[in-house]
């Protein structure tokens, strides 16, 4: 991959100086240049190939408790100057002296090395992937009546400079494949979904079979044709390895974000050092996990991503931090300051959040469950961090009867209370796996995240089905 200069150091320093002119404590320029390709297949046809580009810079100015923010798609010195003035005006609290900024560039860090830059691959090869997906999904079963699939790749060049002298650059490549299938039967239509996404180049498709992803999606739809309504009420739930990381993302991940903690909007406020989960649980947020969807070399404030232990053997060890909150607390950031694009302010966000392995055979966990639900794939979820109440959707699930996985169940939400569910984890397997690529939404911004866990059991969760 080529190196680049999205913006001159000189222009960055001048823009920062201008942004500080109204007396602010801190100024930052975050500039990106994104280029991407998307191909959509639906209804047996490559519908459209589209390409896009987006370049721009967001300028953040902080004075005391107030943040001013403006962004521009114009990266010329004049365009940046205009945005800097608007941001400075927005944060204005007085008139300050002129400060000049000396930027010290940090060596570029690589967490996910890219072998094949997707932009070096012809569009025809990307189209061909989707044709293979369509064929594989449709040949999984005659009841598959519709398949839609999407391929996308994107490459973002980033430069971040701030008035503390930080200067960091990064290149981010993400490659994604999504497959959704519809099956039709006597019970109506059912859907199945699967996806594959990594901070990797086109070499992803040398390592993973797209047919496999397609068949998984199709099989999920087919299985649900014979599914019965999910039960309602509380019961034990076993969650398959690599399918339930979203449980931790919702049950406690968001509640461990320092911005929500600072506002007293988290049930985990003031709980550092306390037992907040079953002693089986060690939870990590790890931005350095090579090639995972949430991996980042640096966060969107220019700080190196880290391996952060959040819960160790059930004890809450730390929250996740962005620069703003960490600065207030006089501590170092944890590499969790992220944003959707240059048009957005950074916030505390997760990266790859996962539970470390336990030591049990996953088969034993099912065998020891008399009656309950086995969840093999989860959809999205959401949480109210102030109450800890969270939900997540099961998109592939089965009944457990007498220690055996039996009939498939239709879709439904599971609901629980974060602190309670963490304490109720009573079995933990030794088969750790990462799950599907996810997009985490917070305050209207989406960022790519990963999650993972070994097979585990929650003693009691409420299943939101319709059967009694």
């Amino acid at each position, binding site marked *: 991959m080529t190196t680049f200069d999205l913006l001159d150091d000189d222009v960055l320093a001048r823009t920062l100086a201008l942004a500080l002119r109204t007396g602010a404590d801190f100024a930052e320029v975050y500039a990106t240049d994104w280029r991407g390709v998307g191909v959509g297949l639906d209804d047996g046809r490559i519908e459209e190939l*589209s390409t896009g580009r987006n370049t721009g810079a967001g300028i953040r100015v902080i004075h005391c408790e107030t943040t001013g923010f403006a962004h521009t798609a114009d990266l010329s010195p004049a365009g940046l100057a205009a945005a800097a003035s608007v941001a400075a005006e927005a944060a204005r609290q007085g008139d300050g002296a002129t400060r000049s900024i000396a930027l010290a560039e940090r060596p570029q860090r690589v967490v996910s090395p890219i072998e094949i830059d997707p932009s070096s691959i012809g569009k025809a090869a990307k189209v061909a992937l989707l044709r293979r997906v369509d064929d594989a999904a449709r040949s999984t079963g005659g009841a598959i009546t519709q398949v839609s699939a999407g391929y996308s790749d994107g490459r973002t060049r980033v430069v971040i400079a701030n008035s503390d002298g930080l200067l960091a650059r990064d290149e981010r490549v993400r490659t994604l494949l999504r497959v959704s299938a519809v099956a039709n039967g006597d019970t109506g239509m059912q859907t199945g979904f699967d996806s594959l996404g990594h901070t990797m180049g086109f070499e992803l498709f040398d390592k993973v079979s797209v047919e496999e992803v397609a068949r998984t999606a199709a099989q999920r739809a087919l299985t649900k044709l014979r599914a019965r309504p999910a039960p309602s009420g509380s019961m034990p739930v076993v969650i398959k390895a690599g399918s339930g990381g979203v449980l931790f993302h919702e049950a406690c991940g968001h509640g461990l974000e320092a911005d929500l903690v600072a506002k007293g909007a988290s049930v985990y406020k003031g709980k550092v050092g306390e037992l907040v989960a079953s002693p089986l649980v060690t939870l990590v947020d790890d931005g350095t996990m090579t090639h995972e969807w949430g991996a980042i070399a640096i966060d969107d404030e220019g700080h190196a991503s880290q391996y952060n232990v959040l819960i160790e053997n059930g004890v809450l060890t730390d929250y996740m931090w962005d620069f703003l909150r960490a600065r207030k607390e006089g501590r170092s950031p944890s590499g969790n300051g992220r944003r959707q694009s240059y048009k957005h302010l950074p916030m505390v966000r997760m990266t790859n959040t996962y539970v470390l392995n336990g030591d049990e055979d996953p088969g034993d966990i099912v065998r020891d469950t008399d009656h309950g639900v086995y969840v093999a794939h989860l959809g999205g979820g959401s949480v109210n961090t102030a109450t800890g109440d969270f939900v997540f959707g099961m998109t592939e699930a089965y009944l457990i009867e007498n220690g055996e996985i039996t009939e498939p169940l239709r879709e439904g*939400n599971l609901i629980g209370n974060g602190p309670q569910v963490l304490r109720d984890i009573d079995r933990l397997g030794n088969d750790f796996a990462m799950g599907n690529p996810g997009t985490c939404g917070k305050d209207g911004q989406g960022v790519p995240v990963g999650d993972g866990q070994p097979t585990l059991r929650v003693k009691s969760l409420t299943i939101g089905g319709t059967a009694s």
Partner: protein
Amino acid sequence: MSGPDRSGELLAIAERVVAMARPGEQVEAYVGRGVSTEVRVYEGEVEHFVSAQSQGIGIRVIRDGRTGSSSAGSLDESVIAEVLVEARDNLGYGEVDEWAGLAAPDGVAVTPQNLWNDALESATPARKIQLAKDLERRTLAIDGRVRVDDSNYMDAFGESAVATTTGIRVAGRENGCHLSVGTLADDGDETQTGFGFAVGRDPEALDIEKAAVDAVERATRLLGATKPESRRTTIVLDPYCTAQFLGIIGSTLNGESVAKGRSLFASRLGESVATPLLTLVDDPTDPRAYTATDIDGEGLAARRNVLVSDGVLKMFVQSSYSARRLGAATTGNGVRGGYGGGPGAGCLALQIVPGARSQAEIIAGIDDGILIQQVQGLHSGVNPVSGDFSTGAAGLTISKGALGTPVREFTIASTLQKMLLDIAEVGGDLEWLPMRATGVSLVIHDVTMSGA
């Protein structure tokens, strides 16, 4: 307004691109530009003040049934030229679709609406900050147990223009503003949350008091909530919850889903799919709607479409593509996600035609049920293809016509098909919200509630 954007500049750009079409090509240029402000206040101070500007162009080129598209977040001449070249190149990879094509003028005139308020343009940053501060202050003044998580003022000004080789030449603009507040109510170790909104086009006409009262009530009345027993019951959906459901119901009435075999209502045109009490319209020509607009994403006049009339399914919303493919009339429902997104079919501003009674009157007539005040996880718990739905919820029990104890951490579940038939009353309490659907109280029988 509408009419052309003030300078005509965006339309001129779109027309210039269209003029570059080669023989045999259909070309569409969509040009958009927006400015927005977001002020967040916390504990009497401005937490952030965001001033956002964006602009961009999306170009589609269709030739011999193949479509290619490209977009860029810039209106720079050289970038636009590159986008056109890219779109042309991309069409070589699309497959032939006999229905591929652009919208063409369909003879429906634009409904004149007042979607632009000059007063909003002259609101000063200081005034915007003041409004968010007032909302925080008034919220805190109502109840000592309440904290404010964030108090926000937001406004947006958008202009767009569409030109095509098929004769579309339109431009429009709209602006609007809203206030929102998030609350936390504490009682000992327990915390509950609430929220309130005020929506409009005139910052001085926003109903701050209602936003404050709603946010305080929603949070405080959940204090002490317990997990209810599992059972089947009657629910009353609060207008905000109804609006969230409407968004999902709207997605099942989409012509593109019908054409591609993904709509559970595909073969039900002319049939009763809901209680006769339900009339559902998509009406972007009602200027009170947050998403009111005069043109759709393909440049056709936005219009009032009756989707369900007295319970009978009347029509699906169409993009020009889905209409062509289904042999249906265009409905002006091309939806784009900004300049980068291709137009698909979608609802623009859903609304249930309101009934007569207030929520309080409705509740007074219910012997046993639950008022659902918050739903959680609709995006993960509803499958618009199969119709299964299951969502987390919180609310208040209704007993002998009165609101009773608060309940939380339970789910409500049914299917969309069944729920539409089980609607027992539509409230008269239309509520305008910062979303694509309008709220109204709904009474629904026989919903499964799953709790302890």
